[in-house]
Structures are given as structure tokens and as C-alpha cells.
């Protein structure tokens, strides 16, 4: 889905998910590793503030991913 959106719309699509090898296999170009399968963009165990901080960091990293020129599939680690 990610790959086809990127191809058809011609825009960067950043995927946040946890199983990085699957994203690479299906052709995602900009990968941001998520927190966990059932809560990729948050960490409820860290309490409301910690959860939000995790989410903010992931989103800022996603913005960095979408503004970075790349030539091949790239994983944007913390």
C-alpha cells in the first residue's frame, strides 16, 4: 500500500511500523521503526506524558524522513 501510494501520488510516504524487514520486503522507501505491533506510535507503559513524548519524537523523525533526499530504502533510526 505504501509503495503504491508513493508511486501513484509521487510523494514521499513514511511508514511507521514495527517489523522493519516486512516494510523493506514490500518496498517501503522511508521507514521509521515503531514502538510495538499493537501501539506503533505510542508507549502506554510510560504513562500519558511519556506516551506523548514517544509519539512526538516519532513524528519529528518522520518529518526528517520525508524531507531527506534518499536514493534507496532507508531506515530512519533514533
Amino acid at each position, binding site marked *: *500500500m505504501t509503495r503504491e501510494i508513493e508511486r501513484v501520488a509521487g510523494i514521499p510516504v513514511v511508514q511507521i511500523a514495527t517489523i522493519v524487514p516486512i516494510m523493506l520486503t514490500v*518496498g517501503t522507501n522511508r521507514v521509521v521503526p515503531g514502538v510495538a505491533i499493537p501501539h506503533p506510535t505510542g508507549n502506554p507503559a510510560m504513562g500519558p506524558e511519556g506516551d506523548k513524548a514517544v509519539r512526538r519524537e516519532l513524528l519529528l523523525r518522520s518529518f526528517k524522513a520525508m524531507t531527506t533526499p534518499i536514493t534507496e530504502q532507508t531506515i530512519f533510526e533514533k
Partner: protein
Amino acid sequence: MTYRIVHYINQFYAGIGGEEKADHRPELREGFVGPGMQIEKLFNGEGKVVGTVICGDGYYGEHTEEARAACLEMIKSLKPDILFAGPAFNAGRYGFACGDIAASAGEELNIPTVTAMYPENPGVELYSKKTYIAITSDSARGMSKAVPAMVKIGGKLLKGEKMGPARLEGYIHRGIRKSFFHEKSGADRAVEMLLAKLRKEDFRTEYEMPVFNKIPPAAPVKDLKTATIALISSGGIVPKGNPDHIRVSSAESFGSYDISEIKNMTPDNYESIHGGYDREWANQDPDVVLPLDIMRELEAEGVFAKIHPIFYTTTGTGTAVANAERFGQEIGEELKKAGVDAAILTST
């Protein structure tokens, strides 16, 4: 008995013309035309090409329904025992036409069908499961090998001979696995494969993974401050009550919802219906799957211009790759029309 063979070819191999004649309408000629001569010869008196159906590649591609119906009618009238189509080599539209007519004739007339293509011909992906596609080189220079490859497979099918594995018989894998007893157990074979891999020797997997396409990365967003960003998820986040009945697994549809008035996803307005992960956290706070709350904060802070008002969502568990690709294409079209600059897609 003499097998009744029908052969399908395009305008080029019929000697009618090239691209300028690609709109040639379906036509039936008696006996063989072009490569059909070699087909008949290879049958060595056991088969006769009773007719050749010819159609322009452009016509078949642009008027597929009409072309298919007309060609099927012609094929049917000849009461064939088998249909050969092509070889199409790496010609995309010819490959499509050969694959389509072979698959359709096989289904409608319940006869064996065989075509031949280069493995990268787009017709392969579309029809390899529905007909036999002998493997050829990428151009007509490979004709002298391509026709015998088709005829060999066709002959086996006509005589009801046992068909071996694709890689030994020279056709493209049809996605069929046959069970049989192996003299060695699966554990033995797996360890042997692993050892071969460690020694960097050749080994062949018994379970091939599907091959996915890769695309060159899109150009980055130039100015984040003026960018509109869309949110998309395959994590099953939907408006409470799942109004469009998106399936909890093996999704066949996606939903698009207006989130322009929503600041935050809460258990009152959104929920997860995904059948492939523990939804406890997502249902306490859907933002842990679709991060709308912080996106709104960052939007207010001016980090980027705006969140696209429409949010796209489906469930990505057991979902057919073809469906996921279709969702992506449809969503991509909409984002393109709306002038969206980038997207964040979350998956579970």
C-alpha cells in the same frame, strides 16, 4: 487421432503489419499462419493447425471485452483440442492478449492452453496461474526454441502425461504445490539447506516467497512549513461502529473519513477493528496507532502547514497483496488530486 490445434497470433506475426496495423480486428484464417507452421511440423502428423485467430495487439488491449468475445467465438467454432497463443516474448500487449485469450479459452472451452513469454512480460504476472506459459527469450530471435517449448508442454497436456515441476518442464510457475513423499524428512532437508547456505553453496528453497516490486524513492518535501500531510493507517482505526463495515482481516476495502474537526482520537469517536493484534491499547487511545493528537499539536506549532482533512484506513492482516496495492493506487490518486505533499502511514 489427429489433434485439432488452434493458434492465436497478432497482426505482426500474421504478416499484416506492425504498429500501424495494431488496431486490426479479430480475424480467422484456415490452417496455419506464421509460427503455426512450426507448431504443426513439430506435432509430426499427430496434430493439425485447423485455424489461426489473428487480432491486433492494440485492438485487444483497448477493446478487451469485444476482442476476447470475438476471438473465443472463432476458437469455439473450430472445436479445438488445444489452443496455442504466441510466443509473445517480451511484447507487453501481445503477452497480455496471449495470456488473456489462453486463460479465457481454457476456462470457457475446458481445453488445455499454452502460450510462451519472457518471464518479465507483464502478461506473466497476470496469467501465469491460469494457463501454461513456456519460458522464452526476450525477442523473436528465440523463436526456434520458443515454439518447441510450447509444443512440448502442449503435447503432454493433450496426452494426459504427468506434468513435472515448472523449472524442469520449462514453464512459469503456476503457484501450484503438489504433495509427495520425500525420502528425507523436512528437518533433514532444512539442515542440509542451512549448511549449504553457510558454505555459500547453491541451494533451492522449497517455499519461495513472493517477489515484491521496489520503486525509486519519491523526492523529499522541500518546505515542511508549507506542506500538507496525509495520515493513513493499515492498523484498523475506524470511526466508532465501523460505518463502512471494513473487514477485520483480509480487507477488501478501505475507508476515508473527514478528520478536519477532530483534535484527538478517543475511545468515544474512534476504535480499532483490526483482527491481527491485541486492540487493548488502541481502544484505550487510538492515537497509539494513528497519532492525530500530536500531529494537531505540531500543526498548531507551525512545524508543517496542515493535516490533510481526509484520513484513509484499512486493516492489514491477511489482506491480499493485490488488494493492498489497489488501495494504495486509489488512495494515491486521491492524494495527488488533492495536492498533498507527503503522507505518514502507520501499520501494526
